[in-house]
């Protein structure tokens, strides 16, 4: 029988996510995929596997899981309290979850979206060419107790106990934006105020987008409410009728009529998605040229994540993790942590 992860309990926003489904934009279906694409890359690096494999996205709160066979797991994104059979395990790290063990993931300690990756990936059925749940489109749904998630073939069984310094992106900060469609509807004073303003992440937000409350008044523009609808991309900062910015994320609509004051760089979008309610965020315009350079650098950095892995147990405070490696039962040669990853 195919190894599987059984969901015993799941928070209200736990879904399967891969890189999403490009190609349906012309039919009004946005690409979707994880709210934090960097987290998917980090999980793939920790398990030395393909970034396109599906993982479990947990919005704000995790759940309780059980493996039907020994499997590798990795945890990335917003740090959450995680245990295996009651023993705390490190976030941003790979671990072994043995058959029958209970893996529990609690609420986010900071940030919004945590990720649970499985060796071989979640092999849920593909729909329209991808495994991503797209809640806004009604493709797939939130995971509920009793769900069995089959895993794909794991090419590196046993390769666990690695960690990665996570790119800090969970408590707001400054994100870079480029001017985009309809930025010209905002006069220079509005743009200057927008760059100087400090925004608070509103409690309203989901995989489609998040609202940010201005420090001062709302943002006015000359576009009015009758502008022809135009294409929207993730990162676009839409100013709705009341002058409040709404940053669009992976499940955003594909077109819209509200003017956009700018568009967040894809490299910085994880910081927007991960900001928890109340987190403070600033926007800084960069030129398109600088944005392209930043994107290319980020691509190179993400491709190099595997080289940034370190063995987890160098830190004696993490020694408890060893318990999950079955050293006592002799299931490993005991040198796992010294061996380079395949």
């Amino acid at each position: 029988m195919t190894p599987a992860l059984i969901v015993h309990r799941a928070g209200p926003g736990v879904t399967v996510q891969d890189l999403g489904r490009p190609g349906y934009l012309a039919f009004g279906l946005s690409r979707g995929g994880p709210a934090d694409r960097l987290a998917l890359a980090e999980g793939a690096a920790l398990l030395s596997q393909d970034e396109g494999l599906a993982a479990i996205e947990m919005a704000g709160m995790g759940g309780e899981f059980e493996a039907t066979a020994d499997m590798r797991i990795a945890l990335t994104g917003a740090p959450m309290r995680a245990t295996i059979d009651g023993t705390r395990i490190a976030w941003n790290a790979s671990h072994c979850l043995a058959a029958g063990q209970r893996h529990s993931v609690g609420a986010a300690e900071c940030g919004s979206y945590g990720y649970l990756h499985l060796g071989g990936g979640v092999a849920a059925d593909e729909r329209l060419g991808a495994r991503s749940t797209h809640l806004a489109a009604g493709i797939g749904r939130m995971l509920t107790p009793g769900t069995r998630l089959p895993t794909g073939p794991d090419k590196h069984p046993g390769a666990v106990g690695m960690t990665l310094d996570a790119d800090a992106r969970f408590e707001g900060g400054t994100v870079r934006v480029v001017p985009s469609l309809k930025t010209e509807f905002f006069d220079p004073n509005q743009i200057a105020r927008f760059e100087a303003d400090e925004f608070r992440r509103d409690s309203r937000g989901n995989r489609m987008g998040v609202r940010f409350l201005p420090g001062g008044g709302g943002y006015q523009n000359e576009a009015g409410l009758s502008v022809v609808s135009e294409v929207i991309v993730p990162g676009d900062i839409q100013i709705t009728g009341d002058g409040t910015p709404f940053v669009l994320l992976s499940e955003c609509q594909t077109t819209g009529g509200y003017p956009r004051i700018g568009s967040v760089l894809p490299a910085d979008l994880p910081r927007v998605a991960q900001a928890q309610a109340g987190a403070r965020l600033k926007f800084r315009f960069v030129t398109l040229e600088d944005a392209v350079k930043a994107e290319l650098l980020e691509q190179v950095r993400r491709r190099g994540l595997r080289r940034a892995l370190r063995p987890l147990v160098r830190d004696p405070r993490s020694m408890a993790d060893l318990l999950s490696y079955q050293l006592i039962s002799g299931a490993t040669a005991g040198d796992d942590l010294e061996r380079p990853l395949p």
Partner: protein
Amino acid sequence: MTPPDATDGKGPDRTAFPQIRTVGTDGLLVSFGEALSEPANRAALAFRAAIEAADLPGLLETSASLVSAYLRFDLCVSDHATMKAALEALLASQDWTSAPLPGGRKLWRIPTVYGTDLAPQLEEAAAVAGLSPDDAIASISNARVRVQTIGFAPGMPYLGELPPDWAIPRQTELTGQVPAGGLCVAIRQLVLFPVATPTGWRHIGQTAFPLFRPDDPEPFALRPGDEAQFIPVMAEQLAAMRNAPDGGAAFEVLP
């Protein structure tokens, strides 16, 4: 840095069309008009098809909106200057505003409940348009509208063009949640929602037409260029059609 207008790919003259602009960090948009018009809409649909056919290195995805064609490309494979040059060459190759509409177009007749508690903003929309509710229903249901683009949500059509009375703006505040199949109006257009959605458009009619069928071999019911007419029915009739194929709608293929 502040208002960055030299960097965003816009030419000095923002009134000249076609116009190529940047979208976000990795997208380009070719627009054929500032406001919706039949020729600009034709051009957008045909030009998007031409981009797909041109096999440009690094091309990731395309779409057509009402008056524009969009493309997203891989920054590791190509760059803005190369993509823009390719688009300019395509633009120069023919008069896109007189391009033919897509082939195999359909005319759909879609049963619709106007007003009632199923579509609570009919009277308000009629008032903004300066019409009585009965005249509003007659005006919308007699109009044969064309799918100008599919966008916003999966399979969701923007349909037009309605008579000039309907040049009404969107609302400032969003309507909380319009259910799937909801027919809404603004700026001489209709939209029909595939899934429940908050919107700035006013909810004037309710249908049972499934626009997006993710498990069907043909997941999207409508294509740009298709036409539709929203036929008035009573709420009880619509209730009976909820489980019928196509929500009681029927089509004929246009010549």
